[in-house]
């Protein structure tokens, strides 16, 4: 029994060492996809309230599994965590301070690295490559309403609590 307390303290200290820096919850996050979706409930079929775009900052209000309740420009709703990053997305690479961009862990530069310019350059070197169908298939869009109607018509029913 006498040894119990010091061991407990040690374990606590070890945990503290490991989790230092991870414990602080993020208050704001950035949209890391071309077009995000803020929905009225944490579900992929829920109504879309707003579509924040790449680099937009959202305030995190609550976590629920893979979903985050966010606030952005007066709209509150739910976004899937995969659409968000803790990094600040800076939209214009040229205008950014050199020193801050060097610490890449906090900042992501939009349009950096493999971008439209590199694709263009690569295309000019490989003239046989045709992006026509890539562009066409990117326009194949299915809305939440279409998904819902499709599932219903085919009697495809997600089991309760199956979708994270």
């Amino acid at each position, binding site marked *: 029994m006498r040894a119990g307390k010091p*061991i407990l*303290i*040690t374990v606590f*200290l*070890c945990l503290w*060492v*490991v989790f230092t820096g991870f414990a602080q919850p993020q208050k704001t996050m950035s949209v*890391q*996809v*071309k*077009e*995000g979706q803020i929905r009225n409930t944490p579900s*992929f079929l829920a109504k879309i309230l707003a579509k924040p775009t790449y680099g937009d900052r959202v305030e995190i209000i609550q976590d629920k599994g893979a979903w985050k309740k966010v606030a952005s420009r007066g709209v509150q709703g739910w*976004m*899937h965590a*995969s*659409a968000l990053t803790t990094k600040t997305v800076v939209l214009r*690479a*040229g205008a*950014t301070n*050199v020193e801050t*961009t*060097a*610490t*890449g*862990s906090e900042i*992501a*530069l*939009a349009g*950096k*690295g*493999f971008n*439209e310019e*590199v*694709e263009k*350059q*690569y295309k000019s*070197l*490989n003239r046989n*490559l*045709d*992006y026509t*169908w*890539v562009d066409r*298939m*990117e326009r*194949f*869009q*299915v809305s939440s309403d279409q*998904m819902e109607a*499709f*599932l219903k*018509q*085919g*009697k*495809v029913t*997600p*089991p309760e609590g*199956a979708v*994270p």
Partner: protein
Amino acid sequence: MRRLLLVCLSVHSLLLLSSCQTMESAATLATGIGQGAGVISASQAESLRKTTKAVARSAEEFTPEQEYYIGRTVGAVVLGTYPAYDHRIVNEYVNLIGQTLAQVSDLPAIFGGYHFLVLDSNEINAFATPSGLVFVTRGLLRCCRHEDALAAVLAHEIGHIQLRHGMQAIEKARMTEALTTIAAEGAKTLGSREVASLTQTFGGTISDITGALIKGGYARSSEYAADQAAVTLLRRVGYDPNGLTEMLGVMKKNLRAGGPDFARTHPAPDDRLAEIQKKGLRYAAVPAHAPRQARFLKALGNI
């Protein structure tokens, strides 16, 4: 007690140090190569080494935006080998199922979204780019006797995307080279020489991925993992996971030995069946659903 604490502390710092050092030495090597080839000057190389430390610390690969551009070109390469099947009803149907499945995956939000396209080929094959573009051949669609089987095919490809198998096919040295060049862009706008060098790295990245995708295939373990992800996705949406079992059964009959397709890049259907059963999926025939089957035949009856 103090000893225990010390052990904890040193293990923790060792873990941190070792991962950082590996990345940094790899970066030193890559900048050395770039410098030798005359792509970048000595002072640029020095600033690269500095910035790479930051990249190594974050240990992150590419932004979703960069994956998007990688995926577009991988898609263009696939479409250079297999022509698109220009059939609106077929592609709409495949996108309805595919995009719905993607929404329940662990990675529903991807930079440019998920998009599916049928390829006009009798080969049994499918390809997924890291950016969410999924291609399936008519030959593979013919292995599906019902919608649950088609959903299994698409869910398997989504599995590869959510598990990032495409990005993992990029060679380590190339990954470091790319991240190093990209980190340099943080410091200054790239000149035409740097863009040329980045384009070269981009080309290498594309060949690494398409090499695995079209020629070599992923590791067997990656295929089994994608099957497992497919079973999960099917359950989440409400499809029968045995859609996968039945599809693999038909595929086994349709595959030609030594054919230029799935047989080369995937484990044999029997091995995949054994593996999904080992992971706990019991076989029971997929029940017939009249409205589901009607729309399946309407879209794919003549595929």
